């Protein structure tokens, strides 16, 4: 017992060093949010005697993070619902239905996987302007959904390919239509796959910056990352205030990640290897 511990010790030491290297900047920033301007100079890990919530109040109200938060929640919710619904349909079509042109479609999907936002951004901007959607939530939501579909389709189709075909056949014999088989028989089995998709889409949408920056100029419609970037432009010297803003942006994704990390890591690692 003692010997195994001694063997494991160097491993833990290495892991701890590299973990601290990640953790220290993040936690240092978190601590800063509770300090006053003058306490900052005493070093990143000087603890304050009084936890000071003032910065959060200022960021939330004066900095309008309450508005940005609401915008982010709305955009992320709609994107997640639409993308998951559509990916389920396309994944079902790819995994279980007759689909002429499948090979050709797959090439298109992989294209969507690799194309950077920059490659579509300028025409998208003109398009949104033309149809009157620029400076609305939809200018962020629709392209974000469209670009999520590549990953979503591949992810869900691999679920449907592995799902028991006998079950779908049995449902057909019992008189279920394709539609009913999907939602009544297969959907309940898809829970883990769908959870992964929900978590990934949420985090990606929440953090999306370039699209939200370009499509929305109206400050009242900004999402949190864009709001934070402009906030930084105005208050870059005020570290505690910046830290408070950064925490408001980061905490929702960190919470979702901690609650669903099994699904998240499986999606990031597994999806990556498959893709």
């Amino acid at each position, binding site marked *: 017992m003692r010997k195994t511990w001694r063997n*494991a010790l*160097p*491993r833990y030491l*290495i*892991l701890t060093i*590299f*973990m601290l290297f*990640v953790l220290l*900047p993040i936690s240092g920033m978190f601590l*800063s949010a509770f300090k006053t301007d003058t306490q900052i100079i005493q*070093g*990143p890990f000087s603890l304050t005697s009084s936890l000071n919530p003032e910065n959060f109040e200022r960021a939330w109200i004066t900095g309008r993070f309450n508005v940005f938060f609401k915008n982010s929640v709305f955009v992320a919710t709609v994107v997640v619902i639409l993308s998951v619904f559509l990916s389920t349909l*396309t994944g079902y*079509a*790819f995994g279980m*239905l*007759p*689909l002429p042109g499948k090979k050709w*479609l797959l090439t*298109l999907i992989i294209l*969507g996987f*690799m194309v*950077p936002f*920059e*490659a*579509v*951004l*300028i*025409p*998208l*901007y*003109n*398009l949104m302007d033309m149809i009157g959607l620029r400076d609305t939530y939809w200018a962020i939501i629709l*392209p974000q*959904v*469209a670009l999520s579909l590549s990953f979503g389709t591949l992810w869900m189709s691999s679920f449907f390919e592995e799902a028991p075909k006998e079950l*779908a*056949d049995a449902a057909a014999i019992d008189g279920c239509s394709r539609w009913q088989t999907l939602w009544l028989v297969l959907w309940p089995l898809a829970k883990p796959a769908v959870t992964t998709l929900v978590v990934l889409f949420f985090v990606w949408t*929440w*953090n999306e*910056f370039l699209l939200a*920056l370009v499509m929305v100029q109206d400050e009242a419609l900004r999402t*949190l*990352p864009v709001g*934070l*970037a402009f906030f*930084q432009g105005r208050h*870059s010297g005020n570290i505690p205030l*910046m830290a408070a803003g*950064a925490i408001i*942006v*980061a905490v929702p994704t*960190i919470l979702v*990640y901690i609650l669903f*990390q099994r699904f998240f890591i499986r999606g*990031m*690692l597994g999806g*990556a*290897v498959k*893709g």
Partner: protein
Amino acid sequence: MARQNAAYPGESKWKGWLYLGPAFLLYTIFVLIPLIGTLYNSLFRWDGFSANREFIFLDNFKQLFTDSEFLNALKNNLIFVIFFCVLPIIIGLALSTLLGRIPIKGLTFFRTVLFLPQIISMVVIGVIWRWMFNPVFGPINLSLKSIGLGGLTRTWLGDFNWALPSVGAVGSWVQYGFCMLLFLAGMQRIPQEYYEASSLDGADQWQQLKSITIPSLRPEIGVALVTTIVAALRVFDLVFVTTRGGPGQATMVAGFLIYRTAFIQKNFGYASAMAIVLTVIILFISLLVRRFQQRDEDKS
């Protein structure tokens, strides 16, 4: 296919398209058509708003290849490949080799933390590191001073020589946990006997890494290469928040230059040409890595 139709006699073979339809429509309108639009726009001199649109064919591209600003941005992107890709993969391989394949108690906790940079908004990461690098009250300079190395303090992000490696280091910080966990997960697949047999034959850890671990991790290394190289070429948020390309052009990257040329300088045609060049480079590298992987899979 025959079996599927057996369960649904008389079903149209186009049924799948019914399910594909709505998604395909969205994808066409918001990805495919804009992609063609960028290609089309790149042949014009256009401010993006007026009807004054002049067809200049490939002149934008000709100009690009002598545009020192654009070439400098691409060079910076390439330097970022070292920081976003090469370093994290080396660190990831080294760490996962050191950790070995023996189950580690509490690995879940370490895994959770190491993955954190992947889920935090790049804007937040930029804010964090601007504070870390702050010349007056940033933890890096404060620590250097406190251990008597005050001579090493810099203005990091404001320094012409240090800004690029400083932002690059943030990229390494974001990516190494991802690479490490990817490789650790892949190593669970390698049979322990390979290592045992090779150590009986007198192979040391370095030889094992070269002849067992790296070849077996080929799919994971391929994924790490594509993901991190694409991240290095597409970097935008981080530069926007930390340096805005400065000081001077020291940290200017293609993504930021495209944004500035299009949406600040209103030169949509020229920015589209830049976007096309960047996209071609990204597609080329992704396909190249893919091709290598497939050839290796065929061999084995």
